[in-house]
């Protein structure tokens, strides 16, 4: 036994010693953690860096893995080569995460000092953004924005002051939102052939909506003599506001206006949480009634947003609400069912006659920069070039790379990969090969489609690309632009507050359960009042207070003028 103890303790001492070394060298690395280059020797000759500089980046790449052409890879592809040749800027991914969770984990590991943080770090999680600020590893970039951000980008950033909230602390700006843009809103997709058969029109109010889904359920719209269709499919698995496809928010907003479920909204000068607004009670009563009559998907509470599409594609459901591009994802119904035809319509109006609202984020994540990174000018040069594709100017007038995301065949620009000189399975989204997850856009909720519909000639990439879509798809975007008033960004976009960190999960679960049980008829309508009481008692009230404090803080210091964005 004695021996065992001896050997054990020796082993433990050994490991401690080894670990100690590791930790030491780690911290040394950190101290010698220089930026890519000291900025002194870097010179810009005719818009090109000579000698070339390297910007290291972190990247989250999902769905996209395995989407490079033959002979190209993450750090060596058409866009990185372009950057080296034309700007003298080499982009190198040194930290790669697959999905959101994995990416955040890897970044936290990098923060623990095991390796150098990349120069440029996109962050998609407000808690992590906050932790990075606390760690002191990221840079205050207010001055850099003022000095280096090109004017056309300043014009964009000026429109979205609130999008800076997650990276502002004590009047300093520790990053910037990634290509802020109020993108497309939601539209209603309806089976036009069913409407025609039953002599109905696309609904514009709750009552009309109810009539249509009742008919879709009871009057055998597909004419097969079986009662196997229903009116409205949506997802309730992750709450009752999905924000992209299979969204039920329209029904709730019809009764609560701007206080939409699952979102913080400004109500009479005070931020409140939409899910506790009294109008939800009526909305739930309505949904419950529809559910018992079979107008809704029987399994709505277990369906994820993407899975709720399947019933529409199969030809079982008649109405679905989501982004206009959802048409491409459900149009297979026209293949599966003979004679099926999809029409788009704007979302319905509320009971007060006002429009219905929906959640829309201004931006997906924020850029943050390593505190030792000294080439902000180079970053903005590159970033601005990426925007060429959005503005339809300069090098990227039609797209990023000929033969990848566009091609010129017989003098005509085409965006159909099957028609390319060297046909492809699908377009190569070159914009994603840089440091943004999505290609920057300045099109808002569909301005290019709206302009085309009003007679603008398609003369740049953005317009030609828009023009190439199918009529129904385009129509959806035109509606989305016309209805842009419906888009409601969340009024709270900071890191979770103190009480939120401890109680939010529980409150959220309670909310989902209560809503689902009421819709399923497992609890009386009155359960909603009880829920609101419980919600307030279990930390909700505290959270409302904290969020309002956050808001008054966020709007106190005028950082916009500090960045020259006023």
């Amino acid at each position, binding site marked *: 036994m004695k021996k065992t103890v001896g050997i054990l303790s020796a082993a433990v001492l050994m490991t401690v010693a080894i670990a100690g070394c590791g930790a030491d060298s780690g911290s040394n690395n950190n101290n010698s953690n220089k930026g890519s280059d000291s900025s002194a020797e870097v010179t810009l000759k005719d818009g090109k860096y000579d000698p070339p500089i390297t910007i290291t980046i972190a990247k989250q790449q*999902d*769905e996209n893995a395995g989407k490079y052409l033959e002979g190209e890879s993450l750090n060596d592809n058409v866009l990185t080569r372009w950057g080296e040749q034309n700007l003298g800027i080499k982009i190198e991914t040194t930290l790669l995460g697959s999905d959101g969770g994995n990416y955040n984990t890897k970044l936290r590991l990098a923060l623990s000092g095991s390796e150098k943080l990349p120069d440029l770090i996109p962050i998609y999680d407000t808690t992590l953004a906050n932790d990075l600020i606390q760690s002191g590893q990221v840079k205050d970039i207010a001055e850099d924005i003022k000095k280096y951000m090109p004017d056309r980008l300043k014009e964009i950033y000026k429109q979205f002051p609130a999008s800076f909230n997650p990276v502002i602390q004590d009047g300093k700006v520790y990053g910037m939102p990634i290509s802020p843009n109020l993108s497309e809103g939601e539209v209603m997709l309806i089976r036009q052939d069913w409407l025609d058969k039953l002599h109905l029109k696309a609904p514009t109010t709750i009552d009309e909506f109810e009539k249509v889904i009742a008919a879709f359920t009871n009057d055998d719209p597909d004419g097969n003599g079986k009662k196997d269709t229903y009116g409205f499919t949506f997802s309730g698995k992750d709450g009752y506001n999905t924000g992209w496809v299979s969204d039920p928010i329209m029904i709730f907003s019809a009764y609560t206006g701007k206080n939409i479920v699952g979102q913080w909204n400004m109500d009479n000068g005070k931020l409140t949480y939409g899910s506790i607004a009294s109008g939800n009670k009526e909305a739930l009563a309505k949904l419950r009634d529809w559910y018992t009559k079979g107008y809704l998907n029987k399994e709505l509470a277990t369906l994820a947003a*993407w899975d709720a599409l399947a019933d529409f594609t199969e030809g079982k459901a008649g109405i679905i609400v989501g982004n206009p591009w959802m048409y491409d994802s459900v149009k297979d119904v026209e293949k599966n069912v003979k004679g099926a035809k999809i029409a788009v319509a704007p979302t319905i109006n509320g009971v007060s006659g006002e429009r219905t609202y929906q959640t829309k984020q201004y931006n997906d994540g924020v850029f943050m920069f390593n505190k030792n990174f000294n080439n902000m000018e180079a970053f903005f040069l590159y970033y601005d070039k990426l925007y060429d594709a959005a503005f339809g100017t300069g090098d990227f007038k039609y797209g990023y790379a000929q033969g990848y995301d566009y091609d010129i065949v017989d003098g005509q620009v085409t965006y159909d990969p099957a028609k390319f000189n060297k046909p492809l399975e699908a377009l190569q989204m070159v914009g994603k090969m840089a440091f943004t997850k999505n290609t920057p856009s300045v099109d808002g909720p569909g301005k290019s489609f709206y302009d085309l519909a009003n007679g603008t000639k398609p003369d740049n990439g953005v317009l030609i690309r828009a023009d190439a879509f199918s009529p129904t798809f385009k129509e959806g975007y035109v509606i989305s632009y016309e209805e842009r008033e419906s888009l409601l960004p969340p009024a709270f976009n900071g890191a979770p507050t103190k009480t939120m960190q401890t109680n939010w999960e529980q409150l959220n679960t309670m909310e989902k359960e209560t809503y689902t049980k009421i819709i399923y008829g497992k609890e009386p309508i009155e359960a909603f009042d009880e829920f609101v009481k419980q919600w307030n008692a279990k930390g909700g009230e505290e959270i409302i207070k904290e969020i309002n404090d956050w808001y008054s803080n966020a709007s106190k210091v005028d950082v916009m003028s500090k960045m020259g964005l006023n």
Partner: protein
Amino acid sequence: MYHKTKGYKAFSVINQIFLIAISLACFLPLLHLLAQSLSSKAAVNGNLVSFWPVDFNWDSYRITFDNSNFTGSMMISILRTVVGTLISMFVITTAGYAMSKDFRARNALMWLFVITMLFSGGLIPSYLLISSLGLKNTLWALVLPGAFGAYNLILIMNFFKTIPKALEEAAFIDGASFFQIFRKVYLPLSLPGLATVGLFIMVGHWNAWFDGLLYMSSTEKYPLASFLQTVVVQGNGQNMALSQSEAEAMSQQSLKAAQIFISIVPIIAVYPFLQRYFVKGIVLGAVKE
């Protein structure tokens, strides 16, 4: 004559029905996947496919094999499985042979091994270790950390213990060295155990995806399981910022089915060759004659 009784016959029938049901429960999901991978996109997205392909076509397989990333990942997985299994088997058999003998520090060593079964450093220390050893982005990061498993060691050690000491002594008298005894007596006699443990390790390597995502910083270095994880497993549903192209990638259910199916085939193909050793089974203690 127990198998002539009514009770036994009834049991036998029920037993077989039960076993068939269980095997169907394992087999039907695979069949469904295969049907999906051979159907058209429209049919799959419309929930029209069950166990028989609708609009039969090979497109998904063609696209998958044209994708250099998929085939590259497959090569990495195969390499990792072969190298990883060889290293693991070497480490475990040699250690198992030594541990099946009596020597003075044996118990202390055994304690050290068992501790690793119960406690691990956790994610962050492991990660720090691998990156400070400079193993990140190399094959070694995938094969070395898990090369030694205490559980497997105990299995192999117990197998070696069942081999009569007399055999070893005979070989020793004939002038064999310890290493020769190990190679020519012990290993050939414990093939069932080696095959079983080898298969555990192999399947483990083939299916491991987390380490690939953690230690590799470019997609072309992913093993197949990690690659599939990024393609097949979707984010957490709340994907508000999803762009249209991403949405399209998500709706390729038939393509995903093909990729999953292809990834299962190699490891299934290994089973029949090892089947005959399993009959012997594995000993975790107790007597088996």
